[in-house]
């Protein structure tokens, strides 16, 4: 019985994985974009680190790892499919989801995780492997370290899904569901460490940002990769995964009751 219900989600996960495999051209141009921005960032940081072994606790190898991990993660955290859920709410297609067996939240999560895993394998893995071959990155080499990094990346992907879902759920209340997102995302982008690592932030700001769920998106996987306070980073990710999971699942249940489907 339990296996039966687990199987539903596994099937959805596989479907999500295959769904993402369709976009080959997007994958190619995504890789080109990641490589290009990685090279630019590497140039900028190499100039900054000339004659300086370490700044704010980050050595050159740490920052190179940050840059290329960021390029690899970009397609997962800022996924192109962010509005698919909101669009399905607006068009009313989401009503069908509510009729299907199982938990709607877990079904969405499983499908999304499948897509994210595909992006991790096709975008993050090649970017990281090539960068590590050409540049002195600091990546784990022990099986335990690699497993920890993989777990951290998967948790970051799920937390990104939870945030996407929270943004998308605005569609239950307003047709202009992108407005709030357009105001918040630039700040999230900066605060989660996608412009510069949060290590360079002023001390007070850094404390606030690293105590928020945004830490789990980008900086926690970087900590795990370079081997800085790995346990704390993983624990923080687990905590936010649980909190955001409970929150977004409850909100989805609440919002589903408001779903208005126009006839047609």
């Amino acid at each position: 019985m339990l296996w039966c219900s687990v199987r539903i989600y596994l099937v959805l996960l596989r479907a999500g994985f295959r769904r993402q495999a369709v976009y080959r051209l997007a994958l190619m141009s995504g890789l080109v974009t990641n490589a290009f921005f990685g090279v630019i960032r590497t140039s900028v940081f190499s100039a900054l680190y000339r004659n300086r072994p370490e700044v704010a606790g980050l050595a050159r190898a740490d920052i190179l790892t940050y840059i290329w991990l960021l390029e690899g993660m970009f397609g997962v955290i800022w996924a192109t499919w962010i509005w698919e859920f909101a669009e399905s709410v607006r068009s009313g297609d989401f009503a069908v989801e509510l009729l299907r067996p199982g938990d709607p939240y877990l079904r969405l999560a499983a499908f999304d995780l499948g897509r994210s895993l595909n992006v991790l394998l096709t975008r993050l893995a090649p970017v990281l492997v090539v960068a590590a071959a050409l540049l002195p990155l600091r990546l784990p080499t022990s099986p335990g370290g690699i497993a920890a990094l993989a777990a951290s990346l998967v948790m970051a992907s799920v937390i990104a899904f939870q945030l996407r879902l929270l943004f998308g759920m605005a569609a239950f209340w307003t047709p202009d569901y992108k407005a709030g997102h357009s105001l918040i995302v630039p700040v999230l982008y900066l605060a989660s460490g996608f412009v510069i690592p949060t290590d360079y932030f002023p001390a007070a700001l850094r404390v606030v940002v690293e105590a928020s769920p945004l830490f789990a998106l980008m900086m926690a996987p970087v900590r795990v990769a370079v081997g800085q306070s790995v346990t704390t980073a993983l624990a923080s990710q687990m905590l936010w995964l649980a909190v955001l999971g409970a929150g977004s699942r409850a909100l989805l249940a609440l919002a589903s009751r408001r779903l208005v489907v126009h006839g047609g």
Partner: protein
Amino acid sequence: MEAEPSRAAATAGARVGRAVAAGAHARVRTGATVRAYGALTMASLRSSVQRPATLVVRGIGSALVALCEAVGVVLLVDRFGSIAGWRTPEIIVLAGLVFTGQGLAQAVGNRLRPDDVSLMIRKGTFDQVLTRPISPLGFVITGYVEIRLLGRFVAGAGLLAWAGRAAGIAWTPAHLAVAALAIACCAVVVFAVLVLGAALTFSTLQGSEAINVVLDGGAYLTGYPMELYGSVLRALFTWVFPFALAVYVPALTLLGRTGPRGLGASLLWVAPLGSAWLAAVAWLAWRRAIRHYVGAGS
């Protein structure tokens, strides 16, 4: 919501079509064409002010993207003191010029992004554009002006004013002219890349994001001094996609810096030529794409 500007533009387009068709003489036609573009621009502007609250929120959002990026750069450069001898306000002058030019170009050319052009071709909307008696490029530009993207322009201008003062720019009329030249050249370069990308999408059909490497990557790269990059990147973004000529070279003049060998402040007069070169290439590519346009079938 997204469909609204296009509907407004289509209605205006029909009106315009009649207006243009009415003018038989060449002189009358020029007047009619100008009026046509005017009507289209007004229609797209009116459609975007239909929901003022949305427009304001989106405008602020567009400005915030630029500002957050700038805050990151300020925090970064302050940590290190300087990049390749450039202090924080000097770097922000570069970023300010880029954002301002980019904002201008995107407000008129955002619909030329590969995804939108791909959709326009696949839905057959572009077939209708071709039947109108005005230039297709003119129609796409004037029919879809997005003023919300001017938020980036405003943010860029604000950053430029602040950083210029902090960097000790005197802002004489000559300085203002150089800044205006940089912004205009940057806008032309960004717009030309948008047109180039659109022309490319006519042959790939799928929206290829590869052009975004040049579009967003070029702008990102120009936000830092060109000394940071290797000779290949520098040459590519100076002589092929002349972002450096448009922004970096005028910034050298504004800041009283000399720049590296081969890319000095003395190249200021080449900046408009560089932009004109890319604009010409983009125009040829666009014309070729239109001539070979066969639609996407259905």
